[in-house]
């Protein structure tokens, strides 16, 4: 699949990150084009959540480039960053709704901070977004009064209230039952069609990934195993991808010396 760089809204090249001495992401490159749904898939500890945090600019990088809308966010000044941040929306894993505000105030928060709209316009805009996520009439409830699925949908309404060009989802189906998470998948598809946004979804749920993805990036131990369409990933014969798809546990080869070293480390003075 060839993608013209000019169309790419997200363009990551050779990203390397460390956590202490531990390498988390190693030479990760990927592009997301306008209007595309890219699913970043991988097991626990594959580095997919870390990758998302870097895409959101929550950490500074050690090496490589991350371009959003053609601008390298690792070198951006705070003002330019601010302009870019107005164009991205994020739905966090736990929703991250502000607990001290009700649903309506949560959704209006980005408008209040970034626009000079009057109160009534903001109210109408926030209600429109709450309609989109089927939460009309719930704007006076506090986050603590909502169910898990409602929290995710309210967070989604907040993420799309500024009409972003890129929408990020961190584990959208985590902690939800299959029916609610299928609803959320449909909602993601509907929002893409209605608003023509690029969507990046980080998940380990196979069903959800196959349902919504245009392309899937499979991460494994900080490296990209493959980038491809749903069918390409399904038919891949890479053993580690097969394990992920068939939910097979992995038997790792045991290095006897290493094993002995782990057991005795610090316990014996030799």
């Amino acid at each position: 699949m060839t993608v013209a760089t000019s169309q790419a809204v997200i363009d990551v090249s050779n990203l390397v990150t460390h956590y202490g001495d531990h390498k988390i992401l190693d030479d990760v490159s990927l592009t997301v084009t306008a209007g595309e749904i890219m699913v970043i898939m991988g097991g626990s500890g594959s580095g997919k959540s870390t990758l998302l945090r870097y895409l959101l600019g929550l950490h500074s990088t050690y090496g490589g480039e991350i371009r959003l809308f053609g601008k390298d966010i690792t070198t951006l000044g705070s003002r330019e960053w601010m302009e870019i941040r107005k164009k991205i929306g994020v739905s966090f894993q736990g929703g991250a709704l502000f607990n001290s505000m009700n649903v309506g105030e949560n959704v209006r928060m980005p408008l209040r901070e970034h626009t000079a709209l009057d109160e009534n316009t903001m109210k109408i805009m926030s209600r429109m977004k709450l309609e989109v996520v089927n939460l009309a009439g719930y704007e006076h409830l506090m986050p603590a009064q909502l169910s898990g699925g409602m929290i995710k949908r309210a967070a989604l309404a907040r993420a799309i209230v500024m009409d972003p060009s890129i929408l990020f989802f961190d584990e959208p189906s985590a902690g939800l039952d299959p029916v609610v998470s299928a609803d959320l998948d449909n909602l993601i598809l509907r929002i893409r069609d209605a608003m023509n946004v690029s969507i990046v979804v980080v998940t380990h749920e196979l069903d959800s990934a196959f349902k919504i993805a245009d392309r899937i990036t499979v991460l494994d131990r900080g490296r990209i195993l493959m980038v491809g369409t749903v069918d390409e990933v399904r038919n891949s014969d890479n053993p580690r991808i097969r394990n992920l798809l068939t939910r097979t546990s992995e038997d790792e080869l045991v290095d006897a010396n290493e094993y002995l070293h782990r057991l005795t480390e610090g316990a014996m003075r030799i």
Partner: protein
Amino acid sequence: MATDIRPNRFRQLSEAIGRKFVSGIEEFGYGAVLLVESTLWLLVGHWMQQRVRISAVAQEMMTIGVQAIPVVTILAFANGAMMAMQGIYTLRDFGAESQVVSGIAMSVTREFGVLIAGIVVAGRSGSAIAARIGTMQMAQEIDALRVMGVSPVRYLVSPILAAMLLMMPLLAILSDAMAILGGGAISVFELHISLETYLTRVYAALAPGDILQGLAKSVVFAVLITLVATSNGFNASGGAEGLGRATTRSVVLCIAAIVVADMIFTFFLSR
């Protein structure tokens, strides 16, 4: 065998001390950056289209200042009364118990009034602020603010700093007044003087410098409590237990910081 353990232990100890020292310096630097950034937002946020909201400042002033009034009143009154009792008891031996009035006036305005206000605010708000910001940190609310393009320092720290700077001096004045009144209540009974006489003597004993010294301290306390509480909140991690630890640490450090700062201040100002 024993010979090769000792150097190890020594090394571990020195490493631990070194790490603590470095993390202490790090924390100090973090606080300094927080102070500069939150002050900058207060001063220039308006021009950067990132205003510090007056409503947020007002809300913080309510919780930090206004709601602390009853406790400050009671503690300051009781403390003033105790100082009068102890003062009269000790000075009676010298037949100088009437001097207790100037003693109370000076020590309250220079020292104890503001210290009581500081400790009350540290206890109430030092824990509450750390807990609130810590909870937000763990629920990814701080990340949510950042990706929305809202500076967490501007949104959370600046209103607290402004409210503290406005309310601490007022609480210190209230505390001064209540402690002097508490001393008066005891003096009226024990020294058989009228409240009016007592207040006149207090007034005569005080110089503007005494009250200003207390007010200057209150400003320093305001900054210290804000920085210690917010930085502990931002650095909280490790679930409910970590939150508890951050909250406790915040209160203890707040009180320690204001008492030590008070001592240093007094050392230089009373020379």
